[in-house]
Each structure stands twice: as structure tokens, then as C-alpha cells.
């Protein structure tokens, strides 16, 4: 859990990793800006009342878009990060029962599990995500402060689905190759 990650060299993985790192940094800065401007705004009004001076250069209060931007970044970081977590097999599972299976059954179970993850990616993330984007587009939903189109926020859902499928196919092939090698090399 507390191990520090190293950045991978494969282009697609590296791109996603950099996006997640940037989104995480932007999240911290954005929320700090939100608190900072609000406190400064309060300080400004307090000082203006106390000493009746003009402090026009200070912000009036919390920048309006900070919370919206934070939520947008978080949805994107979470879904791209979730795809990366499939690549690293970092998602929480219950391996207690599967580890009790006979080795050959276990291999079969492992392949079925990979296929089920892909079914999840296709049916929910991609099919559901595309519908979600279409709904938001046709209704013309916008986020109030940023004026961002809501479908842009949702676009990450089908994108994440696509990456989950790529990574899961890779993991499945790697597992199959490993079990094939295990059979060929007697212990």
C-alpha cells in the first residue's frame, strides 16, 4: 500500500500516469486556491470595515469555479487511475476462495474473472458511458461556474472502459502464457 510507484515506460501507461499525476497536483492547488481566496476575501472585508480603506486588488471571495473544477478533475483522475489500477492489479479482491481451487480450476477461474472484467468494461463503462455522454450532449447540460459542457466530464467513463479492456486483455494473455510455461517446465 505505502510503496511508492515508479513510472512505467510503456507509452500508453506512461501517458495515463502523467495525466493522473497532473490531475492530482491540480486538485491540491485548486482546492487550496479555493480556501485561500475565501479567507482573503473575508480578511479584505474585515480590514475595509476596520480601517475603511479600499483594497480592490484583493479577491472578493472564493473563486467560483474551484469546487466545480475539483470535482471534474477528481472524476477524471479516478476513472483513469482505476484503469491503471487494473494494469497493476491493484484493485481489491477476495482471493481467499479462488486460492482454494485446484490449480487447473484456478486457471479457468482466473480467465473467467478477466472476461467478466471485460464484460463490465464493455457493458457499463463503454455502453453505459456512451449513453451518458449522449444524454448530456442532447440535453445541453453545462456546469454552472466553468460553463463546461457536462458531457466532457462524462467522456472519461467510456475512455476508461477502453483502457480497462486493453489492460485486461494484456493481463489475461500474460496469465495464460505463465500457466502454459508452468505446464511445460516440470518442477
Amino acid at each position: 500500500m505505502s510503496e511508492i510507484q515508479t513510472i512505467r515506460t510503456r507509452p500508453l501507461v506512461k501517458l495515463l500516469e502523467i495525466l493522473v499525476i497532473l490531475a492530482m497536483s491540480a486538485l491540491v492547488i485548486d482546492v487550496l486556491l479555493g480556501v485561500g481566496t475565501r479567507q482573503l476575501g473575508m480578511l479584505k472585508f474585515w480590514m475595509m470595515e476596520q480601517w475603511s480603506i479600499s483594497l480592490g486588488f484583493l479577491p472578493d471571495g472564493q473563486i467560483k469555479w474551484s469546487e466545480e473544477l475539483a470535482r471534474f478533475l477528481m472524476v477524471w483522475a479516478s476513472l483513469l487511475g482505476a484503469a491503471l489500477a487494473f494494469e497493476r492489479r491493484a484493485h481489491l479482491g477476495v482471493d481467499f476462495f479462488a486460492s482454494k481451487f485446484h490449480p487447473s480450476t484456478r486457471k479457468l477461474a482466473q480467465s473467467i474473472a478477466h472476461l467478466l472484467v471485460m464484460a463490465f468494461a464493455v457493458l457499463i463503462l463503454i455502453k453505459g458511458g456512451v449513453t451518458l455522454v449522449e444524454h448530456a450532449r442532447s440535453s445541453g447540460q453545462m456546469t454552472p461556474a466553468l460553463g463546461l459542457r457536462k458531457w466532457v466530464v462524462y467522456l472519461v467513463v467510456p475512455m476508461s472502459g477502453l483502457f480497462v479492456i486493453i489492460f485486461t486483455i494484456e493481463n489475461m494473455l500474460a496469465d495464460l502464457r505463465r500457466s502454459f510455461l508452468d505446464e511445460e517446465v516440470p518442477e
Partner: protein
Amino acid sequence: MIEIIVIMLVSFVILMALDVPIAVTIAGATFLCVVATGGDASFIVANKMANGIDSFTLLAIPFFVLSGLLMGQGGIAHRLINFAAVLVGWLPGGLAYVNAVTCMLFGSISGSASAAVSSVGSFMIPEMNRKGYPKEFNVALTTTAATTGLIIPPSNIMIVYSMAAGSVSVAALFLAGILPGIVMGLAIMGVCLLRTMQGMTGKGERLQVVGNTRGERLRSVMALLWTGFSQAALSLLLVVIVIGGILSGIFTATEAAAIAVAYSFYLAVIHYKEVKLKEMPGILLQAGITTSVVMLLIGASSGMSWILASQNIPQAVSAALLGLSENPIVLLLAINLLLLVVGTFMDMTPAVLIFTPIFLPVMQKIGLIWGLTESEVSIHFGIIIIANLCIGLCTPPVGSCLFIGCGVGRTTIAKVTPQLIPFFIAMIAALLLITYWPALTLLVPGWFGLPK
């Protein structure tokens, strides 16, 4: 409704047994249930998932993960150990208490029980081995004591719970955790006391007290205390900033978490210089991935609680349980036993997300009998479920803390298990106290007029 329950249970059990990630298991079982009710399952589940994550409160999670990683890497472990050594190290069997107190402080600051086991354990376990404490006892102690940090605020699992229980005040949950966390820690130290009285060989550390007259010796002790405290103070200040900031209303829990990131960045990178700037991308990535795992679970669970609620299943479960017994003591015992079993094979976050919506309605009924308000019950149950699942983190076969503890202590689960049993008894005793004495949980939030 019955067919929905059957579909949910059967698909859940099959997927879980195949070791499909829990988030996918939850989403898949929900998907099948929505199909059975005749809805557009793909769209509904995707919509619930995306909107479940889209919340400002949940933003506290990546921030607390990030500040926990920074603090954990930032060399606070030995500073906390020095502080704890002055406080309790001189007692007979002192190193055991030092270990327990450090785990409590570290767990609170880093918010991660696994990090507490690996950071505190990798120093304290070899040290205790050298001083003659039995190795398996040391591993068992570190493993169990580390989980108390999840009950002592600030704690990410409380934010997850507040979301699962439907917007419970995070500030109230944080305050509510303080006394139960300390009680859990004291119960664990109680085992150490018993073992010392039984003649465990480990000794305490002698304090370097100098001086001939009583006054000089007193001054020397005070100086030692001050040195230990001042070393640890900057790390402990993080907790004060977060809790104080939220309570005074200066910032929300999410903003407090962002400030915790800024503060721990300052401590780890600039002040202590234990984290190099070039390590930051790796730390940010780790925090991002850890967060994503939790967020996918939260998204999937918000779909599940929606379908359960739309079919009135939580009410049905609560009616069925109340049909078995009207006695709060029996019901709470049953809920606790079930959660203990769940905790042995399931991680804390999914367990909280799955069982909170199911058991909270029953708890509300019990709360009525006890004369508690709805929000008081939500707070109390949050602490019960977290304290309960802490025990599961240390139990074989799949306790994540136990695995790490055995790794750090270079021993096996089979060897540690006998040493763990007295600690389990102590933790269960503390859990029962927390469960049946709501005033313990509600006292501190009450001082601040929470929950309203």
C-alpha cells in the same frame, strides 16, 4: 423483491469467489438486478457510478491519502517513537507500550494501518526482539495496535462511511472516534500489562535522568519530556490543524485535507528533507491509484445502494432481523458477529460500503429503543463498524495488516496466531464496550454540539 435479493446474492457470491475485483463484483451484481427490474442497466449503473464519484466531500480522500503518504515517508516514525519512549518507555515492559502508543499516533497522522505496521514495525519489532521480547508477540502487538489509527481521526474510512450512510457529518465522526480509538489502544496495552505480569522477559528503558536533589531530577525529567514532545510536535500539529480547522468552521473537511497535504509537503520535503522533490511524481501517482481503487468501489456501491433502496431491501432486512429478536443486545451481537466474519475475508472499504446501507436501518430501530436521535445512531454505528472491521485487518486468512506485520517481523501467520488471540479478546472486549455504551462515542462530539 425476493428475486432481486436472490440475483444480488447469487451473482455477488459467484463473482467474489472467482476473485473478480470487488468493485466489478458490486457493479456486475447491480447490473443484473437492474436488468431484472427492466431498466436500461448499462446507463443506470454508469450514471450512478459517475455521479457517485462526483462529490466535493469525497475529495478529502485523495488528500488524506496523499498527506498520509508524505508523512509516512517523511521520517515521522522515529520522532513519534522518541516521544512515546519518554511517555511510557520507563514502565516495566515499556517498549511494548512505546510500540502501541507510536502505532496509535502514527496511524492517526498517516491514516493508514498498513503504513503504521510497516513504518513503526520495521523499527520497533527488531528493537523489541533485541531487548528480549518474544518475536511473535511483537508482531501481534504491532499488527493490532496499528489498526487503532483508523478509529482515531483524521481517518479516510470515516469519509467513506459518511458517504455510505448518507451525508453524516465528517466532523462529528472524527470527534466520535477519539475515545473509542483510545479505548481500543488501552485494551491492547492491557494485554501487554498482563503479559509483563506473567513474567514476559522484556524490560523497560531507563530514562536518562540526572541530578542529585529531587528538584534537579524533576527538571531533568521535564527536559526529557519537552525534547520528546517538541520533536513530535510538528507531526502531531497536522491532526490539530485538521480537527481544529474543521471544528472552528474555518474550512470544510475537504479543505482541511488539502491543507494537510500542503503542511505535510512542507514538513517532509522542506523541513525534514526526508522526501526528495523528484520522488513527488511517484507519491502523487500512488495516491492517485489508491484513491481510484476506493472511488471505483464508492461509485459501484452508490449504484448498489440505489437498487437496494428502490426495492426497499434494507427495510426488509431490518424487518427480518427485528422479527428474529426485538432485544437490542441480541441484535447488536448478531450484527457484530456477522461483520467480524465479513472482516476476515473482505477489506474494510468494500465492507463498509456494502453493509452500511443494509444495517443502518436496523440500527435506527435499536437507537429508538435507546432514545438516540437518528444522526447520533449514524455516528455511533460508524464507529462500531470501523472498530469491528479493524479486527478483521489482523485476522488470518486475509488480514492485510497481519500480512505486512509478518513480512516486517520475518515470521509466519501460523506462528503469530497464538500470540494474537489475547489481543483479539481485548479488541472484542473494547468493541463490545463501544457497541453497548453509545455515550463513549457521543461524548466528545456532544461537547461541540454535534451531531445537530
